[in-house]
């Protein structure tokens, strides 16, 4: 079964040139497209089946995060069609939706409700979330006193406990310490082995090589390669070596 399908998808942003022009809003409201808009994605086509784990690679600004925001329906495509079947859990950014003045415990509750937990689920899973994050001693401290790694622990613990059908990870793994990274990877493997779909953006190619079976390579908003992870990574590394400024 196909869970994610992109049909000729493009995503443009207005070139704001430092200013938000009234013209842009009017064009948006009237549904016109701006000729000098900037395309973060251009005619992207692919389909991902249930249970696949797919890596997305490309240089900074290539459009990887934009693609993920289309999958989560946070942004609408400018043209083309995005089809999603299944519940998506997105770990797009470290601690999105967390508030620094709330304690760890309050943030877990808030984040759980944002990600779609019911009151009962949030209550039942609270212990396992705290256990996973190993932050028992700090759970009643405000989040602003946490280190980046501690925040990642909390965010990750909430997201992976949601039992998502589609897990989306946008380079958030880099912050944790070695031991916690290993634990996260174990959890991600566990989710993958349950037959869930995984979309993973990372610049840590080693992780992608083992986690994913397939890779999409984006370059300046275009999908230039789609195939088995080893082949795509090989081509990508070769390209990166030869044209380091790209």
């Amino acid at each position, binding site marked *: 079964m196909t869970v994610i399908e992109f049909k000729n998808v493009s995503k443009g*942003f207005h070139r704001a040139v430092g200013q938000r022009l009234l013209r842009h*809003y009017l064009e948006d409201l009237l549904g016109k497209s701006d000729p000098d808009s900037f395309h973060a994605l251009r005619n992207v086509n692919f389909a991902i089946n249930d249970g696949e784990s797919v890596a997305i690679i490309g240089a900074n600004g290539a459009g990887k995060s934009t693609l993920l925001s289309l999958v989560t329906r*946070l942004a609408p495509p400018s043209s083309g069609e995005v089809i999603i079947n299944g519940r998506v859990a997105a770990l797009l950014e470290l601690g999105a939706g967390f508030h620094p*003045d*709330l304690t760890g415990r*309050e943030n877990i509750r808030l984040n759980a409700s944002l990600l779609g*937990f019911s009151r009962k689920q949030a209550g039942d899973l609270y212990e396992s979330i705290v256990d996973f994050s190993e932050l028992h001693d700090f759970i009643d401290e405000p989040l602003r006193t946490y280190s980046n790694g501690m925040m990642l622990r909390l965010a990750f613990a909430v997201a992976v406990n949601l039992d998502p059908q589609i897990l989306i990870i946008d380079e958030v793994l880099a912050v944790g310490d070695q031991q916690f990274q290993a634990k996260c990877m174990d959890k991600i493997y566990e989710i993958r082995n349950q037959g869930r779909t995984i979309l993973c953006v990372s610049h840590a190619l080693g992780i992608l090589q083992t986690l994913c079976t397939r890779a999409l390579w984006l370059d300046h908003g275009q999908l230039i390669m789609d195939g088995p992870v080893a082949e795509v990574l090989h081509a990508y590394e070769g390209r990166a070596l030869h044209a380091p400024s790209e």
Partner: protein
Amino acid sequence: MWNGDYLFLLENLIVKDFKIRYRNMSLGVFWSLLNPLVLMGVLTFVFVKVMPNNNVPNFPIFVLCGLVPFNFFSIAWNNGTLSVANNAGLIKRIPVPREIVPIASVLSTTIHLAIQIALLLLFVVAFGRGVNWHWLWLPLMWVLEIVFVCGLVLATSALDVYLRDMRYIVESACTVLFWLVPIFYTLDIVPREYVTVYEFNPLAAMILGLRRILIDGVSPNGDAGLVYKLAFTSTVTFILGLSLYSRLKNKFFDYL
């Protein structure tokens, strides 16, 4: 797409707003009482001592009936207008139903409102105006008022994403409304041709209705049908605000 628990989410967002607002203040909720009390004192001083030519009895509760709805209105509208832009991280990263952000912001202000209503009722009783059956209208009227503010906030918070000038427009509108709404004057001295405008303004209707119930001890409706007008304008505002919001929300990602 998002198939979570709306009530649980709403509750958490409201609690969050409330905690953030009060956690770092040593006096906490006491501030909610201070503002209307101080204004009540000042306005009473001005209109009873400095310009003692008004013939409104019980001026302190008269003016408090105006201040409590106005205070809620202006705080909820101003904070609500900022709510979407201030929660950009959430709106851009988590696929929650987006209407919930401004609505939660308004509802979190109602906690503050509840404290002020308690203060108002306490004053009313202390001034010797007893409880009467017409008090049963109060919950409905407050709900209509909140619905009205939600409608306004849905519209202005969405517009604020596109045009950040919106927040200053709202701020100025509140200053102007302080004078255009009968907070420290009665409807009697308003020229006849403007009376209908006042009655269709939900904020003014709320204040007039409150005074009828709490001070005069009569039904809020009277000849003018104030509650019906309040219901009408609030519902229309809410529907318009919601439809504007759902048109504009798709592009939030691009503009935040």
